[in-house]
């Protein structure tokens, strides 16, 4: 009775009747499918007064139970026997155990195969179906005229170029370098649009925005959580991709510099955790202070310190963001309080920064990050207590990468549900391998704090690919297979890339361009980090005090013996 076509494939008619009025089939490799066309084959019409409600069931990734989450996407009737649906990955917020398609435990296809989608057709009275609303984004759009198409093409070009905009120091506005305009890539991007536009079908035209779904959250002492889907513009998509790619490449470069012995001491790499800093920064602005621990290079970058200044600081050059005096664990910027070396110490400091904001009545939040290892520190709970007692606008964020140095969370914490460990502070568990999921959680948290409800705790479940630091290969306490599997299955950059391509927000060409541009930026930064000047020897003695003691205006600082002084 029914058939479905996915573009570029054979028509599928292998519906199985699982109930008196229900039919299902499986569409493999559905993560690559943008649209589905459903139609009545004409073999036999629908009963009078009936409509065929079409559902899609997307499987859930672990640790959720292996059952699909169903959503309604549209319907067919005898009067409208065919329809085309755009299948964005929407799914309901809550798993509905009473959904019609769950009553039958059919297993056509493996639930653990995350790329399949189940299609369910249920024949129901027209009145019932008419009242059901499909989620936004499933209606295929059509642009009837060339004018509208050209408009979209130009919008895309502007979006693409504006991702290259920079503000030179002292300038009042941003500028786009001519190389971006005249480069072949800009033209190629537009040709892509033109070629695709010839057919005037949505499948090869880029959208200027899309609705993406977030991964499910877990709530602690919260009635409701963040949005289950979010509008993402192609501008935003490009920015997030670029920022994550930059952090990844910068950290890789840092690892290489360390192996070459250009970086000494400690070097804790953030690779794998990029979605956390990029996703959070998408909602924060530069007036919201951030403080974190020592795995800080990613945050240093997103807080506005250029890659060159980060890498130079790591190699101890005067062009480093702390003039070479801080090193890996002590990088700062406006409203970025480091970079802190003592595990857990940054948490009361962050509560203090939030205290200052409340004291001054600034409408800002302070984001205070710590790891799963620090989560057991006493001072963290002391900070929680005061933050809740005094309603401080503090977002505590536990970046849980499953290992505190070499100790897996189960071996360190009696309770690994870090998002609940604030006890009286509401908490959210976030799958932090997806940047949009992180973004919406941050939006929720920021709104929470700014509405005067006091602090909130976010647990960002993430993963680090490298060891604890450069001296740790990272394999004595976890398996290589685990690391590899995370890289292959859950990499935040690769999965975001896939999402963008599927949603047609950004062309593959553009992503390649971004990758190349990031590589160039990091390569240049590495060169500078290797060759720039080291600090002047006088810097040994500077910045001990911000002002000399009031009774000793000519105060000198002693060197390694009584003959050696800052000023002689």
């Amino acid at each position, binding site marked *: 009775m029914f058939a479905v076509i996915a573009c570029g494939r054979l028509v599928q008619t292998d519906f199985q009747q699982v109930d008196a009025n229900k039919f299902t089939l499986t569409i493999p490799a559905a993560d690559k499918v943008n649209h589905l066309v459903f139609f009545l084959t004409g073999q036999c019409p629908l009963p009078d007064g009936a409509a065929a409600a079409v559902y899609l069931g997307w499987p859930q990734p672990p640790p959720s139970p292996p059952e699909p989450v169903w959503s309604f996407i549209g319907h067919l009737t005898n009067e409208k026997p065919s329809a085309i649906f755009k299948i964005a990955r929407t799914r309901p917020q809550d798993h509905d155990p009473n959904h019609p398609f769950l009553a039958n435990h059919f297993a056509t296809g493996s639930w653990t195969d995350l790329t399949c989608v189940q299609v369910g057709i249920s024949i129901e009275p027209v009145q019932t179906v008419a009242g059901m609303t499909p989620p936004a984004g499933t209606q295929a759009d059509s642009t009837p005229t060339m004018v509208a198409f050209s408009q979209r093409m130009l919008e895309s070009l502007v979006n693409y170029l504006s991702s290259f905009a920079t503000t030179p120091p002292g300038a009042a506005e941003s500028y786009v370098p001519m190389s971006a305009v005249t480069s072949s890539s800009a033209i190629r991007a537009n040709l892509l649009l033109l070629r695709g536009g010839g057919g005037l079908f949505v499948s090869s035209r880029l959208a200027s925005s899309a609705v993406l779904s977030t991964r499910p959250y877990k709530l602690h002492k919260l009635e409701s959580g963040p949005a289950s889907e979010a509008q993402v513009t192609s501008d935003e998509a490009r920015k997030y991709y670029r920022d994550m790619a930059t952090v990844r490449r910068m950290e890789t470069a840092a690892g290489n510099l360390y192996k070459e012995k250009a970086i000494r001491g400690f070097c804790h790499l953030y690779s794998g955790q990029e979605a956390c800093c990029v996703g959070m920064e998408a909602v924060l602005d530069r007036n919201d*202070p951030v*403080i974190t621990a020592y795995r800080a290079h990613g945050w240093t970058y997103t807080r506005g310190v250029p890659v060159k200044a980060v890498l130079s600081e790591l190699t101890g050059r005067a062009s480093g963001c*702390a*003039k070479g*005096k*801080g090193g890996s664990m*002590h990088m*700062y*910027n406006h409203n970025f*309080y*480091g*970079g*802190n*070396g*003592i595990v857990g*110490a940054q*948490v*009361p*400091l*962050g*509560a*203090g*920064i*939030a*205290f*200052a*904001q409340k*004291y*001054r009545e600034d409408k800002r939040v302070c984001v205070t990050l710590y790891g799963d290892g620090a989560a057991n520190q*006493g*001072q963290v709970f*002391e*900070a929680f*207590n*005061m933050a809740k*007692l005094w309603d401080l606008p503090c977002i505590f964020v536990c970046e849980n990468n499953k290992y505190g140095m070499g100790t897996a969370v189960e071996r360190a914490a009696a309770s690994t549900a870090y998002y609940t460990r604030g006890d009286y502070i509401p908490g959210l568990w976030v799958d932090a391998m997806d940047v949009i999921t992180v973004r919406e959680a941050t939006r929720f948290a920021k709104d929470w704090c700014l509405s005067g409800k006091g602090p909130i705790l976010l647990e960002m479940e993430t993963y680090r690919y490298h060891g604890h630091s450069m001296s740790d290969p990272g394999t004595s306490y976890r398996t290589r297979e685990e690391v590899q599997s995370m890289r292959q299955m859950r990499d935040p950059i690769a999965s975001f890339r896939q999402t963008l391509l599927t949603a047609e927000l950004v062309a593959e060409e553009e992503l390649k361009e971004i990758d190349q541009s990031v590589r160039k930026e990091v390569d240049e930064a590495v060169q500078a980090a290797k060759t720039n000047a080291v600090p002047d020897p006088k*810097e040994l003695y*500077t*910045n*001990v*005090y*911000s*002002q000399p*003691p*009031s*009774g*000793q205006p000519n*105060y000198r*600082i002693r060197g390694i013996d*009584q003959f050696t002084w800052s000023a002689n």
Partner: protein
Amino acid sequence: YLIPLSSSHYPVNQTTMHRPSLSACQLILRSFGRSGGNIVASRRFASSMNVRDALNSAMKEEIERDPNVFLMGEEVAQYEGAYKVSKGLWKLMGDKRVIDTPITEMGFAGLAVGAAMAGLRPICEFMTFNFSMQAIDHVINSAAKTYYMSAGDVKVPIVFRGPNGAAAGVAAQHSQDFASWYSHCPGLKVVSPWNSEDARGLLKAAIRDNDPVVCLENEMMYGVSFEVSPECESKDFLIPIGKAKIEIPGNHISLISYGKFVGLCVEAAAELAKEGIQCEVLNLRTLRPLDEEAIVKSVMKTHHVVTVESCWPQCGMGAEIAARIMESQAFDYLDAPLTRMTGADVPMPYAQALEAAALPQVADIVRVVRRTLNRAAK
């Protein structure tokens, strides 16, 4: 041999030195049996104030003066201070400026440091500095070092204050003198007031300083009254950080001390003056940075030196002063090695006689001065 009395050793009204407090003067003058009342009468001391009120008034004025200044600590608000140093402040200023904290030193010291990094000017009180050990990571790693690590990006204008050293009968865990520990660390300024004038001027200077300052007070001094000069009562009365004060000038031996023990040195000086020994009592006032110039100048003048403190002997303040003298030109002016009088190298006992024997007393200072000057014991 007898040291002749010289007649020109009365305190001269030098502008670089503050006048000795009245009580010290009275002691000296009485012991000389002269009516040195001329000099005393020519000064008008405004009033008498105890150290507690000096600290209280300093904090009150600084909180009123600058909206970013606030006081935070255990029992500082509704209890009016464990030792009543913040009496009346909460009633006057309210919850925003005078804040009671839970008993979580590491947490609230860290919170105060964070607030300072973000631009406020907290006064973080430790009920005693013994409890600061729980928070010392924040004093050193979060406060003292941050300006340096950030290459001048992040200032930490915080004051940590509270009673330091022994009280009376509070035993080992409540009697430690932390002068040595804190003055060891670059990035901190460390002050230790003795009398009311010190307390007012140094605390105000500390609060207005843009760097982290540790202010080591002494519980036993809180109730002691001193005459204070009219200048001391001014709202802008500041004592420069890094400058010692000669409480009593003298030519025969330098007694160098800080905090409560300056008072003991003053008493010892009075007693020694009866036998013609002129002690120069140098009140360090600031422990970091030490006023090395004043130390060297004094020793060059007197050729003999005794330091007095309640830190334990090893790595104490006296050890530092000895090293500095060795390294300076004063070394060539010494007629005898330095003696450092310190707390006994034991945890503080409880029983009164034992406690007394664990710290330098006036009689001990007198004995040591005589010994240094090769005078026979009386």
